């Protein structure tokens, strides 16, 4: 009994443990991703094009000797305008032993979220963009879309990996 109580207590405590999320905007939408998946943020530089790749895969860049593919989420999600200005940023993600660059409109901030704050997203059809949504967070007037970025980047939809995780 005491044991069960303890584990229940631990679970409750775990619920109270907040995690940090990085938020970024794509068009008018605001997304949040686990900050532990983010390696660094850098400016956009024109990548080397890869032949016959889907349009949202911009190509590959040289990240201090490592060849890193860059995807433009604005093209992928058809959000905002895929313009490349000196302020365009690339979030370098470290997911599943892979390094992937992700172009977004802008990076907003780093916020602390408790698991209780993340509300389940309404169940739409299993369309592409809702499949990787962990939940929604209401923050004053803003709505954050909490995304499982690792799942998304290794999925077949992104065409980034040979053996997709959900294949």
């Amino acid at each position, binding site marked *: 009994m005491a044991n069960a109580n303890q584990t229940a207590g631990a679970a409750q405590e775990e619920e109270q443990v907040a995690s940090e999320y990085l938020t970024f905007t794509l068009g008018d939408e605001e997304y949040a991703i686990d900050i532990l998946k983010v390696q660094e943020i850098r400016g956009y530089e024109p990548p080397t094009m890869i032949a016959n790749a889907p349009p949202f895969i911009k190509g590959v860049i*040289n990240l201090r000797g490592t*060849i890193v593919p860059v995807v433009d989420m604005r093209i992928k999600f058809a959000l905002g305008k895929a313009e490349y200005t000196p302020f365009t940023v690339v979030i370098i993600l470290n997911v599943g032993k892979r390094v992937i660059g992700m172009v977004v409109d802008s990076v907003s901030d780093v916020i602390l979220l408790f698991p209780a704050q993340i509300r389940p997203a309404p169940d739409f059809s299993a369309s592409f963009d809702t499949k990787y949504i962990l939940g929604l967070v209401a923050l004053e007037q803003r709505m954050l879309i909490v995304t499982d970025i690792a799942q998304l980047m290794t999925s077949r939809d992104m065409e980034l990996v040979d053996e997709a995780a959900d294949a």
Partner: protein
Amino acid sequence: MSIDMSQFHQVFFEESEEHLAAMESLLLELDIAQPDAEQLNAIFRAAHSIKGSSGTFGFTDLAEVTHILETLLDRLRKHETALRADMVDAFLEAGDVLKSMLAGHRGGPAADPQAVAAVCARLRQMTGVAAPEPSAAAPAAEAEEAGETAAVRAYDIEFVPTLHATDDPAILPRLLDELRTYGELEVVARPPEGSACAGFWHLRLRTERPQAEFGEAVDFVSESDAWRIRASVDTSFEDAGGAFGLFDAAPEGEDDSFGFFTDAPGSAPAAPADARAGAAEDEGYGFFDPVQVPDPVLPVAASGAFAVEGEGFGFFAALPEPAAAAALPVSAGEKGEEGEGFGFFAPLPAAAPEAAPEPVAPVVPADAPKRSARAAPAAAGESASIRVGVEKVDQLINLVGELVITQAMLLQCAERMQDAAPERLRQGLTQLERNTRDLQESVMSIRMLPISFVFSRFPRVVHDLSARLGKQVELKLHGETTELDKGLIERIADPLTHLIRNSLDHGIESPEARAAAGKNPVGTITLRAAHQGGNIVIEVGDDGAGLNRQRILAKARERGFQVNDQMSDQEVWALIFEAGFSTAEQVTDVSGRGVGMDVVRKNIQSMGGRVEIESLTGAGTRMTVRLPLTLAILDGMSVAVGSQTYILPLSSVIESLQPLAEDVKTLANQTRVIRVRGDYLPVIVLHEIFNIAPLAAGFTQGIMVILDADGTKAALFVDALVGQHQVVIKSLENNYRRVAGVSGATIMGDGHVALILDVPALIGMAKTAQLAA
């Protein structure tokens, strides 16, 4: 303090493998009629080292086999027995068995116990057969024991017989009788009569014969590890020299690193304490070398160490200098307190004839056993080297690659500044360029190994195979010092082995056929390695029958290949690399199953190399393997298409030319071909395949690069040639996926990524694209 022995196992395995390899190559070099004493010594030392270290690390099975091997080798090097060819074979076989046992200990499949037993029996039998007459042995033994006063010595023999031995009541009495033939035998203690001889036996034997002679007999009936023979010069010291298991009674100056405790006249007075301690500790192994200089301190320290040690392993080597001996007790004492400590006392190689004497006192603290264990082979004549993990070297290579790119980037910046760049900056950059280039070269050379690492295995292959096929073959090696990348070394071994086996099996004729053809009955296989440009060229040549054009063509037809009589020799020879092709008249276990040559070609191609055949009927065949020097760097030609730059491997580029409008034609309005010196080659338009907007408006404004991949030629149309570079190959698949037509990526001088084109894949893509069109 407890030390985990397993941390040294890796070192032991690597060293043992080296010793085995050294032994094998020495055995193969041996001139059986007149064996070189130095070579025999070296073989003995290799076996001896394996035995010593395997005993230390508790691999008793290895120690047992090497012990038997060593016994016979010892006789050979002392000229008590003449070397015979079958002995060499038995030694080689024993080497193989040891290798498989090592592999078993490393986690591989366990060695076949029957094979082990068979080899042991064979070696024992040779040792037995070779045993000299007693009259001959006695003076020999006496000579060995120079410096000792008494030739007659007493041995305490203690053992527990095996179940097998006790099952048969005749075995133990027979042993006793046998021992009586050596000298005066006294039964000190024996199990009660009713217990069918099972239990503890204690015998005392006074004999002038060396212990090795009767040790085998005791070993034979005893549980392994459960027998002990102790010796002393005189009965008053009869407890002296307690050593466990492996024991060498011949106390001449051991010329090896791992000494074995023999009786030490100087230390004898103090040794009993040691011996008793040893007797109490059944798991203690003591290997002692003779101590020539009487030193009263050493034995005390040694016995102290042993008395406390639970599972201690103590190595005491010959200490020819009192100074060194004086330093010894300190560390020995420390070890004694540690209980499970290890004391490795590096040997002074003064007795080793070929080793350079080390001026450093060889006392190594007990907490550095690894280092002293390493010092042992170094003392045996190895050049100074360190063992480093390949991944560390690779990391270094990567870092240097980065540095080169950064340096190139800086240089480009400075060049763009032109005159605005300060003079000192430019000077510094020039200096940096030179330094990075030197650095890169030396780092790359770390991964380079001489090809003798591969070649060294072939004498054995040829030796075994020629014996089995009843052919006489001499193997000639040239250019063994040619260096190539370690990664290639590992991967070239199998294809080369196959080419050699093929030459032996198909190329070289039987001695009779050779004699009939007026050739030397002994065939020759030549293995030659050399650098040629940026490539390494390895030739496997034989002076055999050569390839038979008619037979290959006939076989190809039989197998359903598309052939005709007008094919060039080169094309006909290339047929033997096709899958499922074999012209061996009968399938042997050597070759002839038709798998192999195609695998050989595939393996070589996967390394970025190619293989060519030259053959002259009746005179021989020569297979030439061309490989790039390393897998990590590629000689590339950069080409521009639209805004993109691509790298073509220079090895597949034949030439480039600016096409004339009338040279490019279409076939059935789909396939375009270009006429190059009378030949029509298919045209691959890169910007079409990659969907890039080209700069060149038509064929006449661009460049045709003639490519060759696996003998298929094609012309690749690009906008322009940019230059020639050495590029570091980077994987695209680490973070992305495989891209059709691209084999990898590299980073250019300006920091941009350029993709490396996969020429065979491009040709394939062009074919399918045209089919679809």
